């Protein structure tokens, strides 16, 4: 194993040396960074276009671009939606750096505008099934409890559906909620929800942008079947000290950013806390008063430019959610830490070295009497190293390659029972260790003006590593014996290839056809009995008893822009074929179970669908309308009598309408409407009496549907233009969630009637109806 890795790293460095040798001979490289002139934030995906050659390139995730040119004089045009174009004339006769600062050209209302695409990007980008969201767009969407949430915005994109009210979990194209890879500055986030899913862990004051890849996941990432959500933090204002914040009815937040010393070093710090429990303290009911319910989170980042060729970034996130009362307590939280070094080996070989650390933990404790208490702690740690390279071979050809490795340590828990006179033993589940390594190579090649191709290959090696215990099961899923492995021993390694292929055929200047094939492999999944994401979900790895899950996705799409690119439209069709799908047996015991893999059942699943999107980005009225149809089903041995059944996230029809209207300089109105077919559900078809209670007898799994989900949210943004000049710019946001108070079923239960024994009834639980909120936002 070690030899293989050493060999691969050696190979990588040889390639780099080779590249550096080649390029100095032929063309000359023009490179640099594109930034926002007002605050120095690097602009991602800005176009740098050479007029005379009719060729161009885009800036990468760090704002860096590189383009090879012959000697001569050229007009370089740099464009970005929301910014004024910048044109420079450059005389190229030697390796040259051209850094470009773009001035924001939008109205007063928009804050740090970091738009990510050129005007016809919809049609020209060889990216499909990828949706980039700008922070300003997100801010205009009415939000639950006045807090604008990035994950709530994702849930308004076609192909995405929320897993349930009050949760940040989402399903993409019928996939499971554990099949989305969520990455914050290159560190994985395992649970993106805060308490009850009202807010996600992303504080949008600290976020620069995010991209959701619904299919067509780039070869740089793998490990989840359904999607990649890539979130980047802001670097911090390098021009001046600035800040923003908001005070709301449920939570408040504050962000501070600025340069330290010179503009070579910047920082940004963002914090948030809820105080919902303040309102609980006002209750007259003693039981409610005693509840403590809050979360806080903190984002921090430090950026330093050592010299033209070296930059370092350190970013961190820390959040904790707590619920406690006199009887029980429950807390969970994520911590991520990333340290990165951008290094330019040459002006066309950009490299990024990352060290990342993620920790996810939760605990459940009871203290309901002084004689019997219970304390359960669960945690997961990831430590990773990445080396990613981008080689700008020519304006038509960009090569990406790299090596990633992550070490996982899962500690499913230790339960300590205490209090009584009898002393209990600790109940410990053994730790699980795994090492995930991958190398990848991908090429973006523009064959001619109309056709570009993207191909990538990723090789994964996922290894179970000791110390660990593997149970062996018989045909009845009963464990017969187990094998114990010592520390550091490689128990089993899975080699899996993930190929990617994408084609973009430009039909004319306003339309294009795209097709894409990708294979993804998943080695880490969630053991979850619930249909909504809960913080008590356990992650488990592939192992001798659990094969890695595989998904082959095929997608085609037609993209067309209207009215001078101000209206974007697209149609996408997809088909997913998945193997080694995992589900859980009836009445699975997932929590605190050493023999968890005995509760698993395996089979296959498939999904297909169509997504339609119409988006308007310019003018006073902006927004989008989307409709998606999808179907997902599973066939698992040992479940539903081995017959096919609908997957939990099969929502055939989803309709999302998002609109924002800028009435005048001071006021803008926003509205969004959400409709989704109800989730599949298993209903009773009979009842039986046993032990003096009446319980249901059920139909086949997921044979029925819950009532359809729909709601309308509205908001109003008011920027007062008072005569008195305040030291900050203030803005009021009024919003109402679920305006017509539709009772959306969150759970349907079949229970006995307490007032009428012998009578059973169907009961629907719903969470949120009409909820207004007020937030005051400031910027300085």
């Amino acid at each position, binding site marked *: 194993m070690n030899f293989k890795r050493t060999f691969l790293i050696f190979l990588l460095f040889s390639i780099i040396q080779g590249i550096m040798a080649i390029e100095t001979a032929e063309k000359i490289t023009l490179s640099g960074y594109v930034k926002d002139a007002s605050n120095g934030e690097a602009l991602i995906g800005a176009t740098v276009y050479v007029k005379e050659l009719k060729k161009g390139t885009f800036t990468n995730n760090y704002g860096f671009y590189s383009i090879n040119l012959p000697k001569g004089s050229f007009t370089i045009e740099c464009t970005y939606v929301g910014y004024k174009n910048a044109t420079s004339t450059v005389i190229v006769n030697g390796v040259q750096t051209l850094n470009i600062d773009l001035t924001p050209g939008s109205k007063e209302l928009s804050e740090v505008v970091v738009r990510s695409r050129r005007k016809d990007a919809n049609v020209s980008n060889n990216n499909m099934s990828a949706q980039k969201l700008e922070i300003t767009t997100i801010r205009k969407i009415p939000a639950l409890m006045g807090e604008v949430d990035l994950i709530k915005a994702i849930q308004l994109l076609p192909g995405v559906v929320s897993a349930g009210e009050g949760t940040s979990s989402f399903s993409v194209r019928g996939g499971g909620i554990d099949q989305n890879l969520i990455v914050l500055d290159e560190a994985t986030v395992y649970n993106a929800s805060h308490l009850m899913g009202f807010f996600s862990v992303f504080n949008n004051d600290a976020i620069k942008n995010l991209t959701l890849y619904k299919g067509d996941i780039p070869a740089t990432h793998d490990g989840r079947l359904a999607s990649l959500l890539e979130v980047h933090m802001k670097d911090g204002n390098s021009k001046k000290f600035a800040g923003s914040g908001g005070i709301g009815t449920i939570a408040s937040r504050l962000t501070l950013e600025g340069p330290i010393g010179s503009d070579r070093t910047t920082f940004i710090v963002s914090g948030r806390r809820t105080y919902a429990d303040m309102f609980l303290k006002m209750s007259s009911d*003693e039981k409610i008063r005693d509840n403590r319910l809050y979360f806080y989170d903190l984002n921090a980042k430090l950026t330093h430019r050592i010299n033209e060729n070296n930059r370092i970034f350190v970013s961190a996130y820390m959040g904790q959610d707590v619920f406690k009362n006199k009887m029980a307590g429950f807390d969970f939280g994520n911590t991520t830490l990333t340290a990165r070094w951008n290094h330019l080996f040459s002006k066309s070989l950009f490299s990024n070295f990352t060290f990342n650390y993620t920790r996810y933990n939760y605990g459940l404790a009871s203290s309901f009497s002084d004689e019997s208490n219970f304390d359960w702690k669960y945690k997961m740690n990831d430590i990773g190293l990445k080396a990613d390279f981008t080689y700008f071979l020519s304006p038509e050809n960009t090569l990406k390659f790299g090596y990633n490795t992550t070490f996982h340590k899962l500690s499913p828990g230790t339960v300590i029972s205490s209090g009584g006179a009898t*002393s209990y033993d600790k109940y410990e589940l053994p730790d699980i260790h795994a090492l995930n390594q991958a190398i990848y190579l991908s090429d973006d090649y523009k064959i001619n003006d109309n056709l570009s191709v993207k191909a990538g290959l990723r090789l994964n090696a996922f290894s179970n590593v000791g110390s660990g215990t593997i149970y062996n099961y018989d045909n009845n899923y009963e464990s017969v014996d187990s094998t114990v492995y010592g520390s550091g021993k490689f128990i089993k390694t899975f080699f899996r290839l993930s190929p990617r292929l994408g084609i973009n055929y430009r039909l004319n200047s306003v339309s294009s056809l795209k097709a894409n094939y990708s294979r993804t492999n998943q080695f880490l999944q969630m053991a979850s009995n619930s249909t909504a994401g809960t913080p008590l979900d356990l992650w488990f790895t592939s192992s001798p008893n659990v094969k890695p899950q595989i998904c082959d996705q095929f997608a085609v799409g037609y993209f067309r822009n209207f009215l001078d690119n101000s209206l974007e439209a697209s149609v996408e069709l997809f088909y997913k074929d998945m193997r080694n799908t995992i589900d*859980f047996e009836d*009445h699975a015991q997932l929590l605190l179970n050493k023999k968890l893999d005995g509760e698993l059942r395996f089979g296959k699943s498939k999904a297909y669908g169509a997504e339609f999107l119409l988006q308007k980005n310019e003018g006073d009225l902006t927004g989008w309308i989307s409709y998606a149809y999808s179907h997902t089903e599973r066939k698992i041995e040992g479940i539903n009598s081995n017959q096919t059944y609908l997957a939990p996230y099969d929502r055939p029809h989803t309709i999302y309408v998002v609109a924002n209207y800028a009435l005048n300089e001071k006021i803008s109105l926003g509205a969004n409407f959400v409709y989704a077919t109800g989730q599949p559900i298993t209903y009773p078809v009979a009842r*039986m*009496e*046993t*032990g003096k209670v009446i319980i249901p007898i059920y139909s086949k799994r997921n044979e029925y549907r819950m009532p359809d989900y729909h709601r309308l949210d509205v908001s109003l943004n008011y920027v007062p233009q008072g005569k008195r000049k305040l030291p900050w710019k203030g803005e009021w946001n009024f919003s109402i969630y679920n305006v017509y108070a539709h009772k959306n079923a969150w*759970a349907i239960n079949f229970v006995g009637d307490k007032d009428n024994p012998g009578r*059973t009834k169907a009961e629907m639980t719903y969470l949120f109806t009409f909820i207004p909120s007020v937030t005051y936002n400031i910027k300085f």
Partner: protein
Amino acid sequence: MKYAYITALFCATLLASCTQEIDLNLGKTEPELVVDGAISDDAAADTITLKKSSDYFYNKPAEMVSGAIVTLTDSEGYSYTLPEDPGKKGRYYTPANFMAVAGRRYTLNISNVDINSDGVKETYTSESGLNKVPDIDSMSVVKKRIFYQDSWTVRVSMQEPEKTEDFYLFKTYINGVCNSDSINEWGVTDDQFFNGKYLISESVMYLFSEKPDEKVKNGDTITLEMNSISEEYLYYIYQVADEFRGRNPLFGGQPANVNTNIKRVSPASTDGKGVRGFFAIYSTARKSFVYKE
């Protein structure tokens, strides 16, 4: 296990959600035999009840199954027929000469019934072992304030057997009247956390003052019944209690039918359908305590 208790409680307090009754059109299915009964090794007669399942909104007492031939055979070859109670149709009680002995295996046989009324008589069978129960050395009842109300903890001191994996079912009686008579009120636990230990005044049942039949007064005699049950029966009880309480998307799982340990052998059923419920047989230990304030 206590964990289940906590999560149920947690759901109740955390969610300030709203619930309302709704009308639903549910499907129907063929009636199935529901066997409800538990045999214990104490001197009292035990009953096996046979009923039919009904439509979900039937809202009338279940139809009893009369005229069945119910027999119990043990692993030593002794066989007993359970006669039907002439006054209560569907109830078959153990005859006076029946003695359940710990360590033996028991087979239940039910025949001469036609549940789905298709003209074909069916036969059902089930098998279970009778586990030994340890002795309760002593018990006590102590008043405590739990969950914002007065409650009484019923405690035992005893040696938990180390060699066996044991599962326990607890019931309580106040002055001879059972107050934990429905399955969701039974106390059940496995011995995972205390296998082989000597339990010192360990609380096993809780009586809460908010429930009128659990209020304990000075001078009341509290009787604790401890039964040593099979692992399968423990899971059956957990599943029934889960179904009865209702599930919530956070902690509940996919709805699934409660397991059964009874099979329909003729006509043979391939997917387990046709019969539900459980045949439980266990040994019992009892201890009483007079509560003084």
